[in-house]
């Protein structure tokens, strides 16, 4: 009897809950909150950046570039929206170099911070997840720091844009640099590349094709996991192949390990090209003299004469006391392109801002920016070479800032 009463109560309770739940299904849930914005409120721009984790080396440069651009615009009186000057408020979140964090943080920036537009993180692993969320939620998103082919390959973008170099251009640059500087080698190339999206594209397809075009022979090609640490077997094979030239595409820790392990077995190829990994100043700092002569694709140097480039470098070095990186130029440019688009739209309507981004056509600190039909703006690539801890531009010759160091010491 007691049991049956309890069961009746249990059944009654469950029936009540079910009825309430069913009643609620007749109502509508609260969907995307349209951010109400009055003229006293700032224009909100958000971004996730890698301040910790494996890609933290990029984060500090992006943070400075974004903040510097916003500070400049605010110092000049902000942006005119519907006839009223409004300040720009930048919210940066550490994505911990984790794609999952990018997704959740971008969602928080859209739904809680109620950003009007977004800027990107760094590398395809972190840029693509953020761009996918922004694109699906209709929030303008301007990224840099991800090669344009990789960005384009994800999907047909509506609200996401990318300003960076082309992997294909980057692949051609070292061959052009060797040719233009009259470097004599046996024209045998050995390729070591990681299995990242850009590593696979450049190592398996682009480099072999370009090498064949330019009259070079591929003596060997080894692919390795992006986070590999032991390269001794691969280096031994490269040495045995007799190649004068080694091409490497990897992240920075792998590039450092490869160069150190080459030195450990007493082999120095005449030419070393190390794309991506040899780019940050941390590469040269970690290797010291061993970095000398290593060629890496670059896209910016203050000497190029783009508007504000010299001032940007000086501001970074005086404010932080650190050596500048080309990432301050692309991050600063991405933020400027976005804020120029907001100013051109004169409104915080996301579609109007998005349309204005697509209309961008100007020379910025990183170079000329004009988006193609697939939402990518290609910036020109040059070849630089580490010499005494400083990247020296060695190609194109008209932009060269020093002589080509050959062979690798």
């Amino acid at each position, binding site marked *: 009897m007691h049991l049956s009463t309890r069961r009746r109560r249990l059944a009654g309770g469950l029936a009540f809950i079910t009825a309430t739940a069913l009643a609620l299904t007749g109502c509508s849930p609260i969907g995307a909150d349209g951010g109400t914005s009055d003229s006293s409120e700032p224009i909100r721009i958000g971004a996730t950046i890698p301040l910790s984790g494996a890609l933290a080396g990029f984060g500090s440069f992006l943070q400075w570039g974004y903040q510097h651009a916003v500070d400049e615009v605010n110092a000049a009186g902000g942006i005119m929206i519907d006839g009223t000057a409004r300040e720009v408020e930048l919210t940066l979140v550490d994505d911990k170099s984790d794609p999952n964090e990018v*997704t959740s943080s971008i969602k*928080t920036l859209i739904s809680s911070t109620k950003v009007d537009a977004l800027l990107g993180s760094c590398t395809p692993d972190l840029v693509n997840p953020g761009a996918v969320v922004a694109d699906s939620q209709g929030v303008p998103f301007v990224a840099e720091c991800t090669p344009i082919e990789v960005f384009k390959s994800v999907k047909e973008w509506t609200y996401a844009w990318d300003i960076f170099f082309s992997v294909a251009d980057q692949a051609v640059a070292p061959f052009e640099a060797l040719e233009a500087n009259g470097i004599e080698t046996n024209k045998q190339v050995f390729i070591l590349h990681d299995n*990242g999206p850009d590593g696979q594209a450049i190592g398996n397809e682009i480099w072999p094709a370009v090498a064949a075009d330019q009259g070079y022979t591929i003596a060997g090609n080894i692919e390795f996991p992006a986070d590999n640490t032991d390269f001794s077997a691969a280096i031994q094979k490269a040495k045995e192949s007799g190649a004068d030239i080694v091409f490497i595409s990897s992240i920075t820790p792998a590039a450092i390990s490869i160069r150190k392990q080459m030195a450990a077995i007493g082999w120095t190829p005449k030419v070393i090209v190390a794309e991506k990994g040899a780019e940050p100043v941390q590469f040269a700092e970690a290797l010291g003299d061993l970095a000398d002569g290593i060629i890496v694709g670059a896209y910016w140097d203050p000497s190029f004469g783009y508007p504000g480039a010299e001032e940007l470098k000086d501001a970074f070095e005086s404010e932080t006391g650190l050596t500048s990186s080309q990432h301050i130029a692309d991050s600063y440019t991405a933020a400027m392109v976005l804020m120029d688009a907001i100013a051109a739209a004169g409104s915080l309507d996301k579609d109007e801002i998005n349309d204005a981004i697509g209309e961008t056509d100007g020379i910025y600190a990183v170079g000329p920016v004009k988006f193609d039909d697939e939402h990518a703006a290609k910036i020109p690539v040059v070849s630089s070479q580490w010499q005494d801890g400083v990247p020296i531009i060695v190609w194109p010759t008209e932009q060269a800032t020093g002589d080509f160091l050959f062979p690798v010491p």
Partner: protein
Amino acid sequence: MKNGISILLSRIATPTRVGPRDFIIVAVLAAVAFAVPYFAGTYQQEVGFRILQLGALAAAWNIAAGYTGLVSLGSAAFFGIGVYTMAIASNAGLPIALCVVLAALVAGLFALIVSPALFRLRGLYFTVGTLALAEAMRIFVVNSPWFGGQAGIYLTARAPKAYDLYWIALLIAVFVVVCVLLLLRSRWSYRMQAVRDDEDVASQLGVRTYRTKLWAFGLSGALIAIVGSIQALNQGIVQPNGGFGMSWTIDIVSVAIIGGMGTKVGPWVGAVFIVLLGEFLIQFPEIHLAVVGVVLVLVIRFMPNGIWGTLTLALQKNRNFS
């Protein structure tokens, strides 16, 4: 001599019995949670999604680690299987419900395949073995030609709304909780407990230890994969470093330990604590990680039974005195 794992397990409370009251509480909480999207905004729905996701993951992990003593650091392997199964199956045009079921089946099959090797290991060795398993899966997916390599797979299906995701997560969380409660009501829970407390003695008493461990490990992995499958919907793009990322394993273990291992409520308390702490600190990117780390160390140092375990112990003491 006790190792770290046995010290950890010795702190786990014996699972309490499960009665109809537990199911009623779950039903009431689920009904209240169901109503959240009707009065809370998108941000709250997204935070709710993360709490439900992490809580369900920790509750699923608890089946193997908390109740059976199989402290696994391979959760990311099962999570990633769920993520990738959803991406591939949904891109093939299968309905979401079927993709979720498929994720559980693939993860269960995976557990069946790796168990003979893993169950040769015990204690700390088992834990390290599972850690290698997750990493091996990540490297396999990166290198194999079928999963889009490092670039991953973009989901072609329309991105679900925040409230859709929230409700899917709620449904899955309720399913995980009901699975745990039913398991604790069954004779399996005694077998699992026996294996956890002393596998050799349990074997001598007639418990089929291999089968018991396989069920617990397989069920735990399948439930983790189910939760993983909704992460693919949440992200819209799946990548090996995200799907098989070590951060999932760390988050699950942190949530379970902070909430209270081997308890029904602990994982949910831990999930609420971790997610809300993260949200509170999101505006302070420079100190975010450091503060979370310090808080975790303090909780583990001063609340070794987790927040829920410490609270229930304090309440028991209070009752005994009064």
